């Protein structure tokens, strides 16, 4: 395994993780409607990144898996949504929301740095296919970061001053 395949593998794992985490957060915060809907949408970006990384992996002789199946933990998903609805009138889940948004942000930041590494390696090795992949996907990772940052900025004042 060389550095490029190592980065592909790491990034693939990171995007898989982020896709799963976004869906989980969407379910856990079913009653925070904007978080629920946008996180669900943003998970689709990471799923697409996973798929495209797997294709790139195949071209570089690495076998990487498919995106996580969004319906695989249906029972857990329902439980998470029901739990969210059960505490709809409580302020405390706000703290959990801030923690989740922070973790999403950090996960996206890790991916962003790995996209940066992949793009640099692609340039150094004149791999135009990989460079195109990184150029196409990295901006979306940055947008995921910007979104989590915006949500934290907007929600934190009320959540942290009302407890």
């Amino acid at each position, binding site marked *: 395994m060389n550095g490029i395949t190592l980065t592909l593998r790491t990034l693939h794992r990171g995007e898989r993780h982020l896709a799963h985490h976004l869906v989980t957060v969407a379910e856990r915060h079913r009653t925070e409607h904007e978080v629920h*809907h946008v996180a669900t949408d943003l998970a689709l970006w990471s799923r697409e990144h996973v798929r495209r990384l797997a294709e790139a992996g195949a071209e570089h002789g690495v076998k990487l898996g498919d995106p996580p199946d969004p319906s695989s933990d249906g029972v857990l998903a329902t439980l998470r949504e029901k739990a969210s609805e059960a505490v709809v009138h409580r302020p405390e889940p706000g703290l959990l929301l801030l923690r989740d948004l922070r973790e999403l942000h950090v996960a996206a930041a890790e991916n962003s740095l790995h996209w940066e590494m992949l793009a640099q390696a692609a340039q150094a090795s004149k791999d135009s296919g990989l460079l195109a992949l990184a150029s196409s996907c990295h901006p979306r990772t940055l947008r995921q970061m910007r979104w989590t940052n915006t949500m934290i900025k907007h929600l934190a004042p*009320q959540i942290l001053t*009302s407890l």
Partner: protein
Amino acid sequence: MEDAADRIAHPWGPRVPYGRHETWPARVDTFLADGVEPGAVQRWVQAASILHSDGDAMDIAVADGRMVGVRGRDVDRVNRGRLGPKDLFGWQANASRDRLTRPLVRRNGQLVETDWDTAMDLVAARSRALLEERGPGSIGFYTTGQLFLEEYYTLTVLARAGIGTNHLDGNTRLCTSTAAEALKETFGCDGQPGSYDDFDHADVIALFGHNIAETQPVQWMRLLDRFEGADPPRLLCVDPRPTRVAERAAVHLAPRSGTNVALLNALLHETIRHGWIDRDFIAAHTVGFDELAARVADCTPRWAAEICDVPAARIEEAAELVGTTDQLVSTVLQGVYQSHQATAAAVQVNNLHLIRGMLGRPGAGLLQMNGQPTAQNTRECGANGDLPGFRNWQNDAHVADLARVWNVEPETVPHFAPPTHAMQIFRYAEQGSLRMLWISGTNPAVSMPELSRMRSILSQDRLFTVVQDLYLTETAQLADVVLPAATWGEKTGALTNADRTVHLSEKAVEPPGEARPDLDIFLDYARRMDFRDKDGGPLITWDGPESAFEAWKRCSAGRPCDYTGLSYALLRDTSGIQWPCDERNPRGTARLYTDGISWAHPDVCESYGKDLETGASQEAVEYRSLNPDGRAMLKAAAYRPPHEEPDEQYPFQLTTGRTIYHFHTRTKTGRAPQLNDAAPDVWVEISTGDAERLGLGEGDLVEVGSRRGALRGRLRVTGIRAGLLFVPFHYGYWDTGGGSGPGPDTPGRAANETTVTDWDPVSKQPLFKTAAAALTLLERGDGRPSPAPTTTASAPAAAGVVPPTSGGPAAHTMRQEPTQFPHGHEEGAR
């Protein structure tokens, strides 16, 4: 000459044809109460309509201290004397016997009458206690698009600098926040670019999700008059219903709900592919063309046809229509604003105009519309989730300037985050961090999405709700304190319509009982709270409408919505004037951006913009690098499928909307007999194909259900798009046994029982046009028709099955010959 006409049966009245580039001729519409002769009118008092966003100028007829009728003002360029059905008949609701005449407070679970001192002391005491115990973030205000400018501005000052809360928004969030956001995204700043006068010159008028015939009926009269004249305009209509606009359209597209971005990207694709673009304009006035061109490069009509379920050939025809004309006017309304990807879609209409260079010239204009009469004032006064005067909350210099105007420290005005939008305010109330909500002039228990949730929020014991309204609305019935307000014709104030025309609307009669103008209520509260500026003087220095208007002028000075050249005296003398009106433009400004893009520079812009798909905010440094010279921004967006799609359980798409005879939740129009009789109850529209397939027919009682709730209505079979159901959103429960909501004997009646809590992440406008629903037959029709009007988009597909909607003698109006205006000022601003 008098020409009697039933304006329920003929909502748009008779024609006065005129040709392209000519001035729209006047036609004066008058309605006087039964038995009142024109000679009996003692005074005509200047006003403008508050039952839609058109800003129809009108005079109120007064006899013996009562309103007895209305007359259009022929001197005003907005309507040239014409009035729509709501203008003609809606005023009668003022005298409804169930007006609130005394304050109410909740005692032992019941609302009981009290005096003003008791009610206001209670509100002030709760405010002070919450400020002390929980801080300003525990208090929120939810206002409307139906008060006057002076009232919004006063509310803004007391909420943002008095209480110091970030939680002030209007129900304009539901009607016009996407218009404002789309303008901010493209032009860096709010402000309607075009003018209604552009309709006089346009060759092609493209209406995106805008049923102008019913929402701004007087502008539809203007278009109808042009159809009868020389060189009439051609229309592009994008609407899933068979509206009057669709009937008249050269090209009508009825796309699947939630696919506007796909359709618009295909129109942009064709425009660029054919080279129907103005390269000089793009180079001089825009940034971002290459990114836009790249984004739409694959968005062929064939691609969009698949997504939108519209023939590719029709999309090509539409693109040719808007792509090859020399004078294009586009208008956008709820079919875009209340649908999926609202801001992203509205911005693509801006993009179409920018790449075609169709801006700032007569007949080449853009109208991002409003729904409500004074929504523009909610926006500019800072009561709509913005800072006053289109100031930028992220720009410290703007906040400092605002603090200077108010004579407070900048830290007094919360600006650590954007002003909280309504959906989030209600969420804070739901989770318990917001403990007092003051609702003025709006009825969220009917107009917000997912009403069972709304009722559960508003009925919480821990939430102290104050409702200020004319009637005991569904929302007022859930309140802790109800304040009786005066309305149009009973108070004086200024209002600004969708094309920036400012009108004065004067007091004609006394309000009923102890009801007070909203301005007086806010001023009373400010006095009781003893809000102070930084030098210890009173924060609010005005005591009536005219002094409030003068205060607002100081706040608007030098901003895009500059009012400094206006005064009550000038508005009395000249009828409507379009802002900005200042020393340089003493007679107002017909069009913005006639000489380049003026408010997009990083130092002056209202917003640094957002990500069109996620809503994430951009920071100043990013904006400065993308748009250093302050040009218009061509922002591209990818199509994303709607969040809720039909499935086996909920096989239909459901959209909600309006009819010409009602406004909002019918608080006024349901109390005007002619309007109420024209559309007395909720109905459900279905396509002929779906009705045949399911064996359903006119008048069948059906239930429309979604994952959130259900409503019942009688079916109307129309030419609506297959697979789509339509329900009007006006109907609630105040005139049923249920009172504030469905009950054991009151089935669901409000469309919003079914709608989803989901909003555009950019404009935060809720989605009312994309829900999945099931349809169930409850009971075969008994021969009675559905209560849907036959005169409009709800007309039955088959002729002769339903008696035509008519108003009879009670709806007969007079048409008067235009009279010479004494001031000789007919044309408005150039």
